[in-house]
């Protein structure tokens, strides 16, 4: 035997040596090939003598990464041999070269069965080991009875192997678990640590697949388990099982886990373990990893079983201590566990907030990530400001890889918990300045929505943005938002409108404002979105700052040769407006209407609200009609397919059709006569700019032509008639076809007030609800029977003030409607004041059809948005 052994070793050693001596991969391959060939030959000759050695060599070759399937049958032959050494190598080879999915494995079943019944317990051990590591479901079924018997074998080494083997069996064939309940429970009474350990593990896994087992162990084994754990915890020094001064921490941990499984969801069972858990939690030494491992498991158990607030507090305290540990591992597991604890006892975790915040700045990336998640879960109304400040401060110094996550979380927190708009805007500006390039599109779009809704903050916002771009101009997203705002609120920037107490006043000239946009367009030569936004901002500024018009035109013209079609087209068209169509320019670039926040968030959530309270403005997804990088951005944006029936959008057009059942006529800018094609279309298209594809294609307006063709452009700014803040040069154009020239050049000065003459008409209560009353007073312009001047008066019937009051109206195609700005946006309560607003309606079917109007009123009361809608049908006849 001895010499056999030597022969084996030497030969295998020789091979290993010669492989290690190889200097290149090619050399190694050559040696391996030679050896494999020799082994193959030996196999085919059914060589007995060197089978053992050859398999050993084969295993080594396998470990190097070479294919060795031809050796599989050799394993079987060796296993079938009578001697221990052969069997040992055979089983070893089996476990290394095969796995449960191979059919060859089935052939071994019989050998294993015999070996499980062998008189030599070491051979029994070999078989159990192989079975436990790689058996398949069929083998499990076949050999379960043998294993069950072996759970009660006299030798503890066999019992523990059998226990673990059983784990595999019940995982492969869960139905068999029932057979093992009793023998498994018996193991829990053992004294031998190895058997106890494996027995506990077996019972734990059995509970996962069999409720019967779970119930049985709960009933019969709890007290025993608690006692074992107690004895271990109180154990004096036991050299054989001592690790860092603790007796068999592995067993203690497994016991804690089994207790967890048994105590979950069961208050009575949980009660029985309270004492031992408290003892372990308080008495276990935590200066070494072994002790901390036990504490960790103990905390996990406390968190999972039925509530005992005393224990929970203990547990969270342990986690708090862990968080301050210098050991990274400990901090990491603490953060993990705190995520779970937060659902059970938020207060306790809140107390650890400061330490958790420190972990956000940890050098270890996985600790940072977890800590950030945790912080996110801890944010509430009362701590949002201080937490956000910490996070934003950290944003400045954080790693590049982390900035993305951090930015996303900050934006999410800010959006969710923002107590007031000005704070939201401030935080977002900070984030944009620091990490704008990480901010996602939806986020800065949402910011713009909020900005439009904060009308009292427009001046503050545009000034803050102006300041920010001076220092953080490389952040494209910041630049986009800034450019948009400067375009919209440019006059407020220059005119220092709405300065808040907290602001440092700055002086910005028109030229300064234009400088910013010009710089932006130059600085980001590759960014189509930014440049496109700049162009339209410039168009707006050319209207708001007429003195800069020439300069702006030059800047715009610079791009008329752009190779990007989008920019080229915009440049040419805008330049054309600036140069030759001054009269309609201001109308075109009037202030955008307030974008509806509710709708926007609803859309973001993925669902367009079923109710018809959708925004009347451009969905901010593409503010200012920025072309999305789709395959045909131009088509969408500029509505070049407007010759055909435009595709119905999910938004604008259909909604409008639905709402009104009629076409809309705009208050300000005009659509055109669609019989005129080319030039008209260009203008139409032009007017669609600033509207997302959704809107622009939904052209439903046609106010001038009585033709039934439905194709017309939508006024980008007001789809429903809304008051414009800059009174535009509205002409009360007569109904009927106007040639193109008239449209562009024929605008007269603002309509004069209706000095009324002619027949008087009685006032009507046009709309009334429980909270609001709207009265219409009528008059006619002398000599203009088709046109009616209406003065709308709103009264607040409730005891609460209405703010952000906006009235809108829509009329059918044969009518033309114009709204003037309202007297105010705030409607005092209980009728202690009113808002008035003037309307003018022209009736092309005067005498044949009566006036009819759909109205919509938005306002804010007690911080809630309210929408009221209705139809006015009670116009006096003859209007």
């Amino acid at each position: 035997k001895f010499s056999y052994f030597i022969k084996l070793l030497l030969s295998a050693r020789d091979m290993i040596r010669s492989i290690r001596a190889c200097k290149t991969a090619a050399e190694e391959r050559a040696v391996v090939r030679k050896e494999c060939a020799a082994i193959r030959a030996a196999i085919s000759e059914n060589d007995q003598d060197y089978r053992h050695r050859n398999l050993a060599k084969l295993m080594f070759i396998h470990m190097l990464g070479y294919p060795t399937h031809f050796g599989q049958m050799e394993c079987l032959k060796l296993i079938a041999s009578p001697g221990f050494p052969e069997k040992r190598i055979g089983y070893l080879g089996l476990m290394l070269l095969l796995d449960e999915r191979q059919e060859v494995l089935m052939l071994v079943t019989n050998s294993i069965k015999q070996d499980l019944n062998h008189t030599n317990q070491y051979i029994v051990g070999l078989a159990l080991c192989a079975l436990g590591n790689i058996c398949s479901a069929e083998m499990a079924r076949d050999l379960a009875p043998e294993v069950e018997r072996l759970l009660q074998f006299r030798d503890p080494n066999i019992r523990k192997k059998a226990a673990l083997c059983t784990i595999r069996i019940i995982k492969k064939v869960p139905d068999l678990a029932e057979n093992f309940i009793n023998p498994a429970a018996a193991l829990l009474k053992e004294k031998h640590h190895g058997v106890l350990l494996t027995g506990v593990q077996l019972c734990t896994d059995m509970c996962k697949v069999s409720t019967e087992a779970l119930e049985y162990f709960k009933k019969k084994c709890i007290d025993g388990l608690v006692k074992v754990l107690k004895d271990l915890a109180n154990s004096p020094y036991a050299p054989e099982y001592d690790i860092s001064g603790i007796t068999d921490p592995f067993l203690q941990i497994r016991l804690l886990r089994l207790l967890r499984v048994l105590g979950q969801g069961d208050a009575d069972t949980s009660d029985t373990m309270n004492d031992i858990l408290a003892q372990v939690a308080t008495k276990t030494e935590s200066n070494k990893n072994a002790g901390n491992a036990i504490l960790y498991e103990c905390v996990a158990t406390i968190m999972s079983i039925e509530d005992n607030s005393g224990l929970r507090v203990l547990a969270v305290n342990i986690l708090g201590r862990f968080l301050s540990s210098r050991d990274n591992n400990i901090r990491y597991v603490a953060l993990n566990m705190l995520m779970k604890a937060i659902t059970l006892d938020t207060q306790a975790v809140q107390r650890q907030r400061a330490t958790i915040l420190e972990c956000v700045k940890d050098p270890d990336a996985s600790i940072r990530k977890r800590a950030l998640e945790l912080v996110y879960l801890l944010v509430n109304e009362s701590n949002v400001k201080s937490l956000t400040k910490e996070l934003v401060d950290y944003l400045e110094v954080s790693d590049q890889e982390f900035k993305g996550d951090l930015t996303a979380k900050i934006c999410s927190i800010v959006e969710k918990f923002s107590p007031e708009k000005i704070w939201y805007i401030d935080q977002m500006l900070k984030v944009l300045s620091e990490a704008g390039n990480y901010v996602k599109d939806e986020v800065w779009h949402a910011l713009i929505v909020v900005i439009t809704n904060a009308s009292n903050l427009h001046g503050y916002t545009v000034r803050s943005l102006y300041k920010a771009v001076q220092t953080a101009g490389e952040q494209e997203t910041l630049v986009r938002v800034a450019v948009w705002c400067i375009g919209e609120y440019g006059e407020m920037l220059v005119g220092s409108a709405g300065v808040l107490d907290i602001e440092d006043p700055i002086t910005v000239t028109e030229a300064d404002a234009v400088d910013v946009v010009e710089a932006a367009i130059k600085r980001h030569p590759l960014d189509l979105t930014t440049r496109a936004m700049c162009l339209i901002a410039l168009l707006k500024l050319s209207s708001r700052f007429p003195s800069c018009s020439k300069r702006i035109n030059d800047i715009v013209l610079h791009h008329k040769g752009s190779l990007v079609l989008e920019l080229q087209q915009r440049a040419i068209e805008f330049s054309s407006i600036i140069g030759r169509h001054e009269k309609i320019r201001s109308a075109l670039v009037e202030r955008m209407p307030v974008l509806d926040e509710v709708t926007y968030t609803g859309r973001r959530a993925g669902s367009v609200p079923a109710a018809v309270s959708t925004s009347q403005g451009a969905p901010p997804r593409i503010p200012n009609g920025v072309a999305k990088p789709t395959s045909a951005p131009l088509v969408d944006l500029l509505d070049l397919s407007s010759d055909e029936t435009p595709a119905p959008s999910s938004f604008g057009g259909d909604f409008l059709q639905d709402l009104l059942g009629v076409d809309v006529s705009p208050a300000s800018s005009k659509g055109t006569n669609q019989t005129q094609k080319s030039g008209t279309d260009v203008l139409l298209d032009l007017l669609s700019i600033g509207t997302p594809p959704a809107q622009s294609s939904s052209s439903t307006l046609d106010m001038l032509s009585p033709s039934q063709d439905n194709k017309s452009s939508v006024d980008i700014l007001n789809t429903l008639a809304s008051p414009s803040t800059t009174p535009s040069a509205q002409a009360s154009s007569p109904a009927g076809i106007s040639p193109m020239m008239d449209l562009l050049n024929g605008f007269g000065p603002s309509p004069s007030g209706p000095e009324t003459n002619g027949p008087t008409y009685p006032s009507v209560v046009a709309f009334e609800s429980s909270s609001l009353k709207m009265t219409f007073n009528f008059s006619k312009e002398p000599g203009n029977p088709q046109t009616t001047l209406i003065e709308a008066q709103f009264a607040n019937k409730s005891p609460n003030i209405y703010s952000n009051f906006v009235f809108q109206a829509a009329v059918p195609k044969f009518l033309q409607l114009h709204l003037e700005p309202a007297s105010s946006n705030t409607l005092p309560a209980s009728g202690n004041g009113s808002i008035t607003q003037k309307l003018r309606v022209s009736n092309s079917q005067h005498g044949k059809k009566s006036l009819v109007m759909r109205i919509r009123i938005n306002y804010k009361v007690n911080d809630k948005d309210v929408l009221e809608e209705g139809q006015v049908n009670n116009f006096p006849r003859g209007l």
Partner: protein
Amino acid sequence: MIRFILLQNRQGKTRLAKYYIPLEESEKHKVEYEVHRLVVNRDPKFTNFVEFRTHKVIYRRYAGLFFSLCVDITDNELAYLESIHLFVEILDHFFSNVCELDLVFNFHKVYLILDEFILAGELQETSKKAIIERMGELEKLD
């Protein structure tokens, strides 16, 4: 449970690979490559735990060898860290100041020791003394 155990040196050579879940040979090679890449570059200041696919790897470096355990995501990391250390202590005792070469030339013995320590992906015995004694008995039979 433990899904697999790997012993790899800094160059990525596998000195021991034990799988308790079935994997194709090609998949095993891929796994070994990925795990090695994960652990070999990690800063020693970082935790000994790395996320790996839908599980996690607990690892520790001893001289030129990385000992890696892939376990379920719900397992106790600190406990497995402790078990790695116990395994190293057993090897150290058995080979009397173990070095990488011992493991190379005696790979079949290393597997034998491992099979006395872990079975079916779970711990089998926590007493170093018991395992060493058992190994003694087994050697006599060979």
